[in-house]
């Protein structure tokens, strides 16, 4: 694995390898091993063009636990905010000897461009690009699902996951729709028609506009964050109407099978797409997702940087 740009880069076996690797790394953490050595002497740059403290900290912790040197390069207060182009920033990072760049960027495809334009020689990890993808989020979601539904082994063959909310603008939904299917799960996308992407019928997912009808046969429900700015763009009439039609509350949660779990990539809008009692319920694995994020990102960095450059 040279880069991780899209969930579609991963075959079923690749994805299972990431999850298995993450599992071993999580076990090492649980056994009290502080730092692992495999990325000693490697430099990982966190290049964040959007504020996302939680994702950046997760990658930073992951890289440091593998003994990499970490450079945080955030857009605010740097040459980036003074209008430096992505290319010039990339050339700087290359000169600094970055072995891998973890990039979060508001423009879809920016990680792909960074990986393929010839500006840098190192690996690129997509930490979220525009409304395109967020593959490590999908991997940590798959890890969490596997831990709960498949005892932490193998793939997700036969599992059924509903992804609910702003699918149109969600990189989490795009990556999960691909990865979960790669792992053998079936995916049902639930959203108002205005928040379904054009061509969603080609994604291999079931599409529903009705949340109440979408809950009784699922193993997990993944709620997506609804950005406040969507509310003024006529995607739905009011926050109240959205919440009453597509929000997950206790009444709806009780329609789910008893083993089914509730997920959210965070940060949550409590009271909007998810009610507080659901977010804090025993079926919510949201805090666990955060913890799994570090192990999964360790696995990705290890698989990209832990061997030879050619693979």
């Amino acid at each position, binding site marked *: 694995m040279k880069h991780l740009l899209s969930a579609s880069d991963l075959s079923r076996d690749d994805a299972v390898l990431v999850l298995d690797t993450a599992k071993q790394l999580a076990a090492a953490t649980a056994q009290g091993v502080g730092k692992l050595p495999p990325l000693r002497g490697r430099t990982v740059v966190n290049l964040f063009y959007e504020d996302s403290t939680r994702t950046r900290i997760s990658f930073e912790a992951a890289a440091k636990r593998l003994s990499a040197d970490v450079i945080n390069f955030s857009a605010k207060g740097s040459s980036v905010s003074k209008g430096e182009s992505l*290319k010039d920033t990339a050339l700087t990072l290359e000169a600094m000897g970055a072995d891998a760049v973890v990039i979060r960027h508001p423009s879809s*495809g920016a990680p792909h*461009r960074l990986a393929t334009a010839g500006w840098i020689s190192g690996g690129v990890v997509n930490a979220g690009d525009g*409304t395109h993808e967020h593959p490590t989020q999908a991997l940590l979601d798959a890890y969490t699902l596997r831990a709960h539904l498949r005892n932490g082994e193998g793939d997700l063959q036969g599992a059924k996951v509903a992804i609910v909310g702003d699918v149109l603008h969600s990189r989490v939904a795009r990556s999960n729709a691909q990865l979960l299917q790669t792992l053998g799960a079936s995916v049902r996308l639930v959203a108002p028609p205005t928040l379904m992407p054009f061509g969603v019928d080609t994604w291999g997912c079931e599409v529903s506009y009705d949340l109440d009808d979408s809950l009784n046969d699922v193993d997990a429900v993944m709620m997506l964050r609804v950005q406040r700015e969507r509310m003024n763009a006529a995607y739905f009439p009011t926050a109240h109407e959205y919440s009453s039609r597509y929000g997950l509350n206790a009444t709806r949660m009780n329609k789910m099978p008893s083993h089914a779990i509730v997920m959210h990539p965070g940060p949550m809008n409590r009271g909007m797409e998810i009610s507080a009692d659901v977010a804090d319920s025993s079926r919510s694995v949201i805090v666990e997702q955060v913890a799994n994020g570090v192990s999964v990102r360790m696995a990705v960095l290890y698989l990209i940087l832990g061997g030879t450059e050619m693979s």
Partner: protein
Amino acid sequence: MTTYVIKDVAILGGAESDIKIADGVIAAIGSGLTGDVVVNGKGCVALPGLVDLHTHLREPGREDAETVLSGSQAAAMGGFTSVHAMANTNPVADTAGVVEQVWRLGQQVNLVDVRPVGAVTVGLEGTALAELGAMAESAAAVRVFSDDGKCVHDSVMMRRALEYVKAFDGVVAQHAQEPRLTEGAQMNEGVISGKLGLTGWPAVAEEAIIARDVLLAEHVGSRLHVCHLSTAGSVDIIRWAKARGINVTAEVTPHHLYFTDDVVETYNPVFKVNPPLRTRADVEAVRAGLADGTIDIVATDHAPHPAEDKDCEWAAAAFGMTGLESALAIVNDTMVKPGLLTWAQVADRMSIAPAHIGRVLDQGQPLEVGSPAHIVVFNPNIDIEVDPTRTVSASRNTPYAGYVLPGKVVATFYRGRPTVLDGALA
């Protein structure tokens, strides 16, 4: 004065013949002709010099991207003898002063007829009509008016413009793009945009404007030209309008004949263009439309950009691609080789019809004795790999980099004088 003979060339793809050029006109057509300079036309076709109705020369304002000189050279290399310089310069070509400046630059360079296009509205802002009459009466004698790059989206403004230009036989060339439906748009709205997470530019945003405009043109009895038509629905609307007798013409670009939107999966901004590259069905429809005459002409929408505006992430990149130097090879590849157009029809779509729409006198004339000697000699049987570093345009944003294209312009004659000989600037 030097005389030229093009030997053994297939005129409009027909029988081989010699063409003798003297004193700026075609002096003789026949066999065994002699002259001071001989061009070997064996295996080549001769067409009347190409006329581009849609060229961005960038001067004044963005001379780092292109100048009238470099753009004229690129045009000559592509076989063009006339180009229409779009109005979205800086300052905008919305006054007689600016259009005359561009026109004079073209005269000085003297490689092609540079016909300035006048802006429809002041500053392309869509709120006040530019001085269309003054531009028409200027030395530049503007006949084509366009806010290209932006759509004249206000219905009243479009109606008035269509009506007003009738006074001097002008035409409004519309960049059909409904602005609200295309806010932030990055590529064709379709399966690929959904997958790539790029904001979509739906076909309906083009078709809705074209539908409105043909009805307006019918209502006020005016002449309308539709720029860079790109969708199957647009072809249907134009076909319907023409059947109704509406005075509308339409153009398609080489890149909309060639590419589909799946190339965007590379996220390489060289493929970022407005209107965007469309689906396979759209490409098939515009080819068919060009073949059956629904679409009147091919126009390049040559849009040079400096490297930094393309060597970046997709969203930050400028829209547009160069096209003058590759246009004829693309038309050969997409239309002639598949049997959709004959060379005589290519002469119509790329010279005769655009000259007529633009009211370019003495261009787009038949290749016969006495015609002004605007001639392109094109070898359709050479495969050339496009190397952007070897283009003549000042910009390198050709989308065909690394593609092998069929055909090469061997010679271009402009007013009886070679601008290109042996495939290089003369």
